[in-house]
C-alpha cells in the first residue's frame, strides 16, 4: 500500500547535538516531498520541500533534508539542535503533483534536553 513512514515516534536529543529524523515513502514515482513542524498548540509550518533537482534541500531554522531515490527516503537533519526545536515533525507527500492534497506520516515528537 502507498504510504509515508516515520519510524521514530519519539526522539530525545541534547541541545547542541545533531539530529536526523527519518522518512520513507512507498509510491511508484517520486512524489513531491515536504517536512512540516508543529509546535504545541500551533498549526503546521513548512520547513522545506523537494520537487526535483538537487537532492539536498535547505529549509528554514537551519534544517536540511536529503532525498535518496534508491532508499525512497527524505530524511530531515539539523547539525546542532536548539531547545526551541522541540516539537512534532511531519513528513508529507503530494503524490498527485497537483497540490491537491498532502498525505502525512504519523509524526516524530522531538524532545530536547538541556
Amino acid at each position, binding site marked *: 500500500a502507498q504510504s509515508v513512514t516515520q519510524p521514530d515516534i519519539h526522539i530525545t536529543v541534547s541541545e547542541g547535538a545533531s539530529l536526523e529524523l527519518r522518512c520513507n515513502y512507498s509510491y511508484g514515482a517520486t512524489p513531491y516531498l515536504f517536512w512540516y513542524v508543529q509546535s504545541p498548540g*500551533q498549526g503546521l509550518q513548512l520547513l522545506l520541500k523537494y520537487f526535483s533537482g538537487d537532492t539536498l534541500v535547505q529549509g528554514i531554522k537551519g534544517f536540511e533534508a536529503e532525498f535518496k531515490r534508491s532508499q525512497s527516503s527524505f530524511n530531515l537533519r539539523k547539525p546542532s539542535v536548539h531547545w526551541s526545536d522541540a516539537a512534532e515533525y511531519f513528513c508529507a507527500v503530494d503524490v498527485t503533483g497537483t497540490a491537491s492534497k498532502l498525505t502525512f506520516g504519523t509524526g516524530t515528537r522531538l524532545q530536547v534536553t538541556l
Partner: protein
Amino acid sequence: GAGVSQSPSNKVTEKGKDVELRCDPISGHTALYWYRQSLGQGLEFLIYFQGNSAPDKSGLPSDRFSAERTGGSVSTLTIQRTQQEDSAVYLCASRAGHSYEQYFGPGTRLTVT
C-alpha cells in the same frame, strides 16, 4: 500579513449535536484544505477547494461531514450528528494558486462528549 484563522479554537459538544467550524484563509489564496488530526488516525485529508472547481471530497469520512466555501474565501466544515470518534483537531490550510506551500491555521479542537 494575517495568516489562516480558525474559529472557534475549542468546541465541546454533546454527541448527536451538529457543529460548524470556520476557516478564514489568507487573502487571495485560491486553494483551501481541511485536515483532521486525531490520536488514532494521525493527520488525514478531508476536503480540498480550488477556485470555482468542484471540491475534492474524497477524504470525508462519512456523509455526516460536509463543507462549503462561500465566495471563494471563508469555508465552513459542518459535522452533523456528532459522534465521539469525531473528537479531533480540525486544521484548515490555504495556498496561493502559483505555489505548492500550504499555510495552516492553528486548528479547532473538537471534543464530543
